[in-house]
């Protein structure tokens, strides 16, 4: 399979919590009540009252999988390469190309032991159109 090793140094979910922490800490309780009409979220209260929980939050994860690209990014890259390299005449029509790209996405997102057969990929493909070069060619 393509490029699972393309690295990404942090996932966005972790990042958002880290970035929001200093802002939360900078605002005192009275300011909070002026700015926010709703009662504060329980997690915000706990970070202000208990400083020990902050250190556990700021500990970086150093798992190998954290540095990998997400499946969506890999799929987008694969589709970009295919649409850059394969001329449009090979697909026969824009619909065929769209259908194939959907299958590329499916293939990248397959989990272990899941398979994609040629029969599934050929669903919805039209090979009889006049612009197709695949008439009778395997």
């Amino acid at each position, binding site marked *: 399979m393509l490029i699972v090793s393309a690295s990404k140094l942090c996932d966005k979910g972790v990042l958002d919590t880290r970035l929001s922490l200093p802002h939360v800490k900078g605002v005192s309780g009275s300011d909070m009540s002026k700015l926010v009409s709703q009662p504060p979220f329980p997690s915000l209260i706990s970070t202000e009252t208990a400083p020990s929980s902050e250190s556990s939050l700021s500990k970086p994860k150093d798992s190998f999988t954290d540095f990998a690209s997400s499946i969506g990014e890999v799929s987008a890259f694969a589709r970009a390469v295919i649409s850059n390299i*394969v001329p449009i005449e*090979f697909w026969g029509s824009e619909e065929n190309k769209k259908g194939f790209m959907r299958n590329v996405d499916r293939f990248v997102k397959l989990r272990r032991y899941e398979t994609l*057969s040629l*029969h599934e990929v050929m669903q919805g493909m039209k090979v009889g159109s006049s612009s197709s070069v695949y008439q009778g060619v395997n």
Partner: protein
Amino acid sequence: MPVGRSFLVSVIFVGDASFPSRPSEAHSVSKNRSNMSHVLDVLNRFPNPSDRTHVIHILRYMFPRQFNLHNVFTSTVDRKETIQPLKDYTLREHEIALQGGKGSFIPKRLKGKTFDLVQRMMRLHKRCSYHALIEYYCPVWVLFLFSYLPFARVAC
């Protein structure tokens, strides 16, 4: 073997057959194969679109049945060669060399339009900047790494 609807179900797209399931092993395998990876693609082994023999070689990989080479439709898989459901077609050089003697032969169906399209595909492959694409679609978030550090958080 006849090509029918039921047969198409048994043709399965196999991912990288040598790709192991555990990430730690994947890392070591990618390191070992990094020197080889550009040769594994036939478009890199035969890169010249104006060379007729190069184009024919790519055609052999794309349409093996037209050249009577081993293919998923009519050939049987030798169980001594692979444990995968289908044969690995990454390198066909040995098979093509065994066939021999047909250096400039092109099947009738592949002459003309298909030949030109494959030539164009080779040209597009040569021109395509894969590095720019991977930078765009799979970016490396270097800045966010520093948001963990204390001084970066003060700067925020």
